[in-house]
């Protein structure tokens, strides 16, 4: 069971507008990730947030995911929850502008926001597999292992899947497995 930290955005307000407040909330999140217990999974919960501007979403999530992908934030798996339809659209727009993706849990299940179809499809297969190795994802998608590795690299950078080093009896060298957070 992975250690999980929930960051409740709704406690900051039901209507979120400005980059100023987004900056403060992002800095708080990054501080908690840096100084808190070694959580492996961060759930950013938008429950209670009725609406937000795209500017807010960009300054909060756009910049957070940029820092995560660049390694400026300790690597963690991230899941967005509690996004209503309008807020999902705002987040998706800001992610697409920055060519970023983010995993979200919606009523219909898990989905990858901001992603091009090939990556969204990869994530859907990952969701079905839950715990898997790159070769298994490649087989599921009917793509080459190299291609699967490239896609997994992007999913891991976005915190959409977790990557763990594993040992396999009788086999040497590096081997990794992948799992969905939470």
């Amino acid at each position, binding site marked *: 069971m992975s250690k999980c930290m929930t960051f409740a955005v709704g406690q900051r307000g039901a*209507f979120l507008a400005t*980059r100023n407040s987004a900056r403060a909330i992002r800095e708080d999140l990054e501080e908690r990730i840096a100084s808190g217990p070694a959580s492996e999974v961060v759930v950013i919960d938008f429950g209670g947030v*009725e*609406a937000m501007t795209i500017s807010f979403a960009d300054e909060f999530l756009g910049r957070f995911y940029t820092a995560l992908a660049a390694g400026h934030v300790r690597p963690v798996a991230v899941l967005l929850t509690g996004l209503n339809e309008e807020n999902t659209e705002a987040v998706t727009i800001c992610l697409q502008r920055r060519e970023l993706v983010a995993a979200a849990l919606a009523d219909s299940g898990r989905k990858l926001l901001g992603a091009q179809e090939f990556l969204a499809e990869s994530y859907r297969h990952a969701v079905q597999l839950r715990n898997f190795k790159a070769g298994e994802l490649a087989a599921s998608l009917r793509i080459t292992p190299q291609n699967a590795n490239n896609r997994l690299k992007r999913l891991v950078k976005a915190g959409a899947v977790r990557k763990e080093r594993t040992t396999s009896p009788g086999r040497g060298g590096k081997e990794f497995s992948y799992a969905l957070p939470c």
Partner: protein
Amino acid sequence: MYLRLTGRHPLLSRNLQQAPCPDGELIVDAHRLAFAGPLELAAIVGLAHAARAQGRGTTLVTAEDPSVTGYLQRMDVIRRLPASTVIDGRLPAERRTDLASALLEVSHLNTETAEDLATRLGRLAAAHFNGTAAGKVFAAIGELIDNAVDHGASSEGAFVAAQVYTGATSGRRGLEVAICDTGIGVLAHLRRNPAHAAVPDAASALASAFQPGVSGTTEDRGNGLNDLLTRLEFGSLARFHLRSGAGLATVTVRGQWRTERSHRTTTPVQGTWAWLRIRIP
């Protein structure tokens, strides 16, 4: 400066009725004002605070129609004017009921008050628009708030007011919001970015500001005004005015259909005035 407010919604006109004032004072003459909306309310207060910051006094000539003056008073125009403002005319006895679901009195908008005011305006939108439309209306208004706080920053801040119209007299239900800041204006802000240093005038600056990615910063930003208009594409007729310096941009949005026009004006204003009206279905 002598600013004459006559008729209905006078500050929506392209050119304002203004003239220099010999002693440099600001005189806002609302004697013949027949109808004021959030734009007039927020602008009067913003102008007075900008004048005070320049060491000039303000005189407000109240409307001869007591219902108009009563409305200015109810919407906290008198309360928000600098204490040194001279009120020339009668003020009716104030009657006050809580109408938080129908209006936002003139309020000082700055980094400290922005989120509280955003919440007030969000509640206002949620009370009059359904589901995702309410979210889109708030997202549009929120971009105005962010712009005023982020780009319009000055020691005087900005002023915001809002009103829901039931359509009882006009037949047109709608939400109106105005935010008037006393900052450097769109042209000077845009020119801070070397990529836009050659923008020739305020009208051109306003036209550019609606284009995605045009920003006064060198960061990968500048989508706020375009996002504002895109959020309004949910179906209700929306009208947006943006006045800054000697420029005025007017935009009409109905679904995916949008018209944008920008004009030079003969009556420049300090800072930026934004006015948004969205028809309530």
